[in-house]
């Protein structure tokens, strides 16, 4: 029996091998306006979510950090300052448009010396085992086709004692918030997307893909299955976003 493998692209069911290309189109389309859209959509709160992620990472001077699906480089910028000249930050993204925007922006702002750029797929990372003290993936896991493979790959390249932090949309914990959030994301988001990037479809995908993403407890279980220990999560903004953290034993 051979059944074709399928996965979700927002609410649509697509062949597993198609998803990567469809997600790529979304990000090629929105890369130039990505930062502006994040500020508009989250009322600037994404900056606080990211700052909290850095705090929870326990990053120290001299550390090796992998900022996965790091896109336009928000986290990389902050990590670069903390790890200093003896440390290193690798900004990796599967999407060349996002990576180019990130590299140009960081270089223009003078962030050079301890940052490297790699185009890579989270499901099969091109790094040696036990390479990183910290791995972050902010708003990226949702778009990965095989999330279990990605988590295993991240666990492999973490050093023993290294921390994985996954910042991702999650399930609102408060029913009122959940309702408001539904209305907001299925009407306001595609509308803003249309206005700013002239691409409503990509932001319709965003709203749908958030609903399809595993909830807090499910993702925690997936991280444990990938071999990480002391897995826990923090709900941010009533669970609109959750920060998951796990440690490589």
């Amino acid at each position, binding site marked *: 029996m051979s059944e074709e493998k399928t996965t979700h692209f927002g609410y649509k069911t697509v062949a597993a091998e198609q998803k990567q290309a469809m997600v790529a189109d979304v990000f090629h389309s929105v890369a130039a306006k990505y930062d502006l859209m994040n500020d508009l959509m989250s009322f600037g709160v994404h900056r606080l979510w990211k700052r909290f992620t850095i705090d929870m990472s326990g990053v120290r001077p001299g550390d090796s950090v992998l900022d996965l699906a790091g896109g336009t480089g928000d986290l990389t910028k902050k990590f670069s300052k903390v790890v200093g000249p003896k440390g290193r930050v*690798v900004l990796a993204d599967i999407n060349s448009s996002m990576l180019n925007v990130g590299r140009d922006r960081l270089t223009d702002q003078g962030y050079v010396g301890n940052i490297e750029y790699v185009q890579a797929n989270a499901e099969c990372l091109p790094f040696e085992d036990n390479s990183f003290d910290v791995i972050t993936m902010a708003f990226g896991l949702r778009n990965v086709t095989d999330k279990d493979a990605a988590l295993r790959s991240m666990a492999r390249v973490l050093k023993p004692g290294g921390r994985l932090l996954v910042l991702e949309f999650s399930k609102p914990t408060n029913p009122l918030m959940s309702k408001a959030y539904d209305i907001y994301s299925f009407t306001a988001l595609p509308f803003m997307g249309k206005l700013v990037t002239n691409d409503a479809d990509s932001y319709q995908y965003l709203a749908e893909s958030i609903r399809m993403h595993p909830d807090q407890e499910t993702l925690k279980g997936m991280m444990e299955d990938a071999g990480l220990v002391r897995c826990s999560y923090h709900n941010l903004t009533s669970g609109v976003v959750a920060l998951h953290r796990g440690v490589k034993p």
Partner: protein
Amino acid sequence: MDKQLLSMLVCPLCQGKLKYDQEQQELLCTFDGLAFPIRDGVPVMLEGEARRMSEEEKLDKAQA
């Protein structure tokens, strides 16, 4: 390409060591027969973007 970065990278499929072809700006995995391009100094470590090496090239590069 940056030496430090080069020393960290392995083949995304077999996690084997890569050979750096400076002239062609490629990273070669002779085991999988894949040549990963380096574009504007950024290694593109995706199987779908890699050039497939011929059998002769694989043997040739493996010995080099």
